């Protein structure tokens, strides 16, 4: 009872309590099934993160490509959405939103943010290659730091550290 109350107050401790139960031989998931679960989650996370990143990069790119030089009236903000290239950008950004929501259904926000930041690098490179925007030495340094942050969190942190099991409808279906 006390352990359950503690777990409710500190949902991140669930994983630790499962590991402790396993190490003491108490009933719990086997080592194989835990490894399979970790591998499944990692594969699923990276696949979904790739969709999030690519849809964001190309969505932003098409949006910029189709954008006129100025939007003088509020109505222009709506009518511009019907330009084919802008519309393609919007469709890709809807895919970005949906895939990001799916990713957040199992991964922590503090994990998703740095890992998907690789998109910022790809956007800067796309701006350079396809729109002929300038990337100065300072910007390349910034790109390097972003990549370092992505590698650190992506390689050195599990996607999910504190996730209470939910009983809400729709969970785990």
């Amino acid at each position, binding site marked *: 009872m006390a352990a359950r109350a503690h777990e409710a107050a500190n*949902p*991140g401790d669930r994983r630790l309590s499962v590991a402790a139960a396993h190490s003491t031989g108490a009933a719990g998931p086997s080592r194989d099934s835990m490894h399979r679960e970790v591998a499944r989650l990692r594969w699923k996370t990276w696949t979904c993160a790739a969709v999030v990143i690519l849809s964001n990069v190309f969505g932003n*790119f098409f*949006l*910029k490509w189709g*954008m006129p*030089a*100025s*939007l003088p009236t509020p109505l222009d*903000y709506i009518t*511009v959405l019907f330009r084919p290239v802008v519309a393609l950008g919007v469709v890709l950004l809807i895919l970005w*939103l949906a895939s*990001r*929501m*799916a990713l*957040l*259904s*199992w991964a*922590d*926000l*503090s*994990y998703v*943010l*740095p890992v998907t*930041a690789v*998109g*910022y690098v790809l*956007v*800067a490179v*796309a*701006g350079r290659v396809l*729109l002929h*925007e*300038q*990337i100065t030495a*300072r*910007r390349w*340094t*910034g*790109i*390097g*730091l*972003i*990549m*370092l*942050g*992505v590698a*650190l*969190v992506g390689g*050195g*942190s599990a996607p999910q*550290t*504190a*996730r209470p099991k*939910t009983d*809400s409808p*729709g*969970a*785990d*279906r």
Partner: protein
Amino acid sequence: MRWVLLAIMVGATTVGEVLQAMGMRRHGEIRDFRPGALGRAFSLLARNWCVVASVVAMAVSFFAYLGLLTVSELSFAVPASAATCVFETVLAKYVLHERVNWVRWAGASLVVCGVALVSL
């Protein structure tokens, strides 16, 4: 003007993404990606107030972003918006109660420093 639009975008994005994470956590892990199951998940999410509010905030952010794109380069607009990263990491710790260990703080800090260099 571009700094005003950037401020609106950063504020709306931060609120929107934290609400989105909160709503998706309430919903639980999406495991079935078949169209029928996704449709059912969508109808549940449409009744999740956190997700609905996050979409409204993201819409505000999106139109601020459209305005920003007209007055700045793509390679300024997108990286500058990554300032949300630091605000969201703080809110992830104190509002979503995630365990933000040193690796994640370091990663978020590197991303923010990188973004500052890319944007300035």
